[in-house]
C-alpha cells in the first residue's frame, strides 16, 4: 500500500482485498466486551474537518479510539480557518504537535492530495472526502458491505467482487462516492453501471471503467447491488432536473422498482438519505437496505485502513510474507 490513502484508484486489487479481509477481523472486535485494541497506542491522529460531516468524523473517531490512538478533532467551522489559504498553516501547526496521521475532509477537490504531496507535512494522509473527487473509505466500506452480503463474511475472505453487477444511481456529477466506487469496484472485478439523468453525468465520463445508462428500470433486473446516491434538493434550482417529483419518478427507488431487482440483490445508500427523493421509506426500511450495516462496516473499514497505514514501521506490504521463528 501507499503511505497515504487519497484515492480509491490508488489501491491495487491485493491492497483492497487485504483491507477488506482486515476489516473482517476488525468487525469481530465490535462483538467483544472490550471493543478496543492496543495497536495504535502512542499514535496521534488528527481529524481535520474543513467541511461538516458528523457521520464520517465519528466513524473515524470510533475507529481511531478502538485502536487506542490519541485523537484530536479539529473542525474548521467556527475557527478562524474557513478559507483554504490556511490549509498549509493548519496542517503544519498540527504536525508540530507530533501528529502521525491526518484524516482530512475538505470541500476542495484535491486538498488531501496537496496535503500529502506538497511537502507541507510528513504525516500520513487519509482522505475522508474531498470536494467532488474521492471518498475512498466510503468505497471500501461499500465494497465490504457488498462482499459480506453477496458472498458472506467468512466465505468472502480473500475474495474480490469479480463479475458482480453494481448499479449506482443519482447525482454522479457531484458525487465523490460515485467516483471512488467506480474505481474500487472496477479494481475488484465488478461491473459497474451508473444511472443518472444526463445533466448529472459529468462530461468526460467516457474514460471511466463503467457503463452509463439513463434508464433505471432496464438496469435493475441485472443488478446484484443498487446504490442510491443522495440528490440535494438545491440541484433542482440549477436546472439539473425540472422538479423533485419528476426526479423521484424517473430515478427514485420505490417498492415496485425494488421488486424488479433479483431476490438476492441489496439496496445501498451512503447516507444521509433524502426519503421521498431518491428512495422511499418503504425501501429504506426494508431488510434489503444495508444503510445501517454500512455505518457499522465503516468503523471496521477505517480501523483496517488505519492499522494497515500506521500499525507498523511502514504501510502494509500486500504480498504474503513467510515467517520464521
Amino acid at each position, binding site marked *: 500500500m501507499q503511505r497515504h490513502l487519497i484515492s480509491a484508484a490508488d489501491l491495487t486489487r491485493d491492497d483492497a482485498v487485504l483491507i477488506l*479481509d482486515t476489516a473482517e477481523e476488525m468487525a469481530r472486535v465490535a462483538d467483544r466486551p472490550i471493543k478496543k485494541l492496543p495497536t495504535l497506542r502512542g499514535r496521534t491522529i488528527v481529524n481535520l474537518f474543513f467541511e461538516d460531516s458528523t457521520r464520517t468524523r465519528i466513524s473515524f473517531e470510533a475507529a481511531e479510539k478502538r485502536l487506542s490512538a490519541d485523537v484530536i478533532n479539529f473542525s474548521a467551522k467556527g475557527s478562524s480557518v474557513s478559507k483554504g489559504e490556511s490549509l498549509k498553516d493548519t496542517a503544519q501547526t498540527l504536525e508540530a504537535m507530533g501528529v502521525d496521521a491526518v484524516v482530512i475532509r475538505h470541500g476542495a477537490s484535491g486538498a488531501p492530495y496537496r496535503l500529502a504531496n506538497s511537502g507541507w507535512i510528513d504525516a500520513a494522509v487519509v482522505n475522508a472526502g474531498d470536494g467532488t473527487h474521492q471518498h475512498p473509505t466510503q468505497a471500501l466500506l461499500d465494497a465490504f458491505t457488498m462482499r459480506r452480503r453477496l458472498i458472506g463474511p467468512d466465505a468472502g475472505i480473500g475474495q474480490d467482487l469479480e463479475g458482480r453487477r453494481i448499479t449506482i444511481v443519482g447525482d454522479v456529477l457531484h458525487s465523490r462516492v460515485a467516483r471512488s466506487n467506480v474505481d474500487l469496484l472496477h479494481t475488484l472485478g465488478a461491473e459497474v453501471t451508473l444511472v443518472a439523468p444526463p445533466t448529472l453525468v459529468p462530461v468526460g465520463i467516457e474514460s471511466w471503467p463503467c457503463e452509463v445508462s439513463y434508464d433505471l428500470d432496464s438496469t435493475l433486473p441485472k443488478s446484484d447491488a443498487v446504490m442510491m446516491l443522495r440528490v440535494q434538493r438545491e440541484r433542482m434550482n440549477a436546472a439539473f432536473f425540472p422538479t423533485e417529483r419528476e426526479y423521484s419518478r424517473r430515478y427514485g427507488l420505490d417498492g415496485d422498482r425494488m421488486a424488479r431487482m433479483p431476490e438476492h440483490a441489496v439496496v445501498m445508500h451512503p447516507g444521509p438519505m433524502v426519503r421521498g427523493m431518491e428512495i422511499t421509506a418503504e425501501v429504506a426500511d426494508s431488510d434489503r437496505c444495508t444503510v445501517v450495516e454500512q455505518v457499522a462496516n465503516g468503523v471496521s473499514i477505517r480501523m483496517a485502513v488505519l492499522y*494497515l497505514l*500506521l*500499525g*507498523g514501521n511502514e504501510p502494509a506490504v500486500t504480498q504474503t510474507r513467510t515467517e520464521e521463528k
Partner: protein
Amino acid sequence: MDTHDSQSDARPVLEGPDIARVLTRIAHEIVERAKGADDVVLLGIPTRGVFLARRIADKLEQITERKVPCGSLDITMYRDDLRMHPPRALARTEIPGDGIDGKLVVLVDDVLFSGRTIRAALDALNDIGRPRAVQLAVLVDRGHRELPIRADYVGKNLPTSLRETVKVQLAEEDGRDTVLLGAKQTAQ
C-alpha cells in the same frame, strides 16, 4: 547467484509419528492436571498453533468422550514489535460460544521462543474475558526466553543456538508433519 537452500540443510528433529505421540501425551497431561478437563478451552495461536489446538482437542475428545471447546486467538495487534515491521495481515480470533470467563484456557502454539508471543496472547485474552486460569501448551520449546514465561505442556525441549532456526510444518498448512532445525540464512 547462490542457490543454497536452507531446507536442504535443515535437520528434522520431530517427524509425523513423533508429533502425534507428543500431542497425545499433552492431551493426557491436560486431562490429568485439569482434573478431567471439564472447563478447558483450547485457544490456538495462528497459524500453526490453531491446527495443533484442534488436534489436541480431538485427542481430548477421544479421552474424555466430550467435545472440548477450541478456538483461535490472533495476537497480531498486541505484538510489541509492531513498529519494527510493516503491518501484518490479521488472522482469525474465534472464541468458542461459551466464552472464556471462568474457564481454564490452554493457549497452544507451535514454538516457544522469546515468550513475547505469549505475552501478547495474555494481553489479548485480557480484552476478551477473565479465565479461571491460563496455561500454555507448545510443540517445541527452544529456549532463549526474554520474558518470565514458561510452558505448562511441552512436546519437546529443543536446546538451540540463536543462529539456528526452528521450523514447524503441519499437514494442514504445509502438507506434512515435521519440525526442522536449520541454520539461519546469513545475508549474502
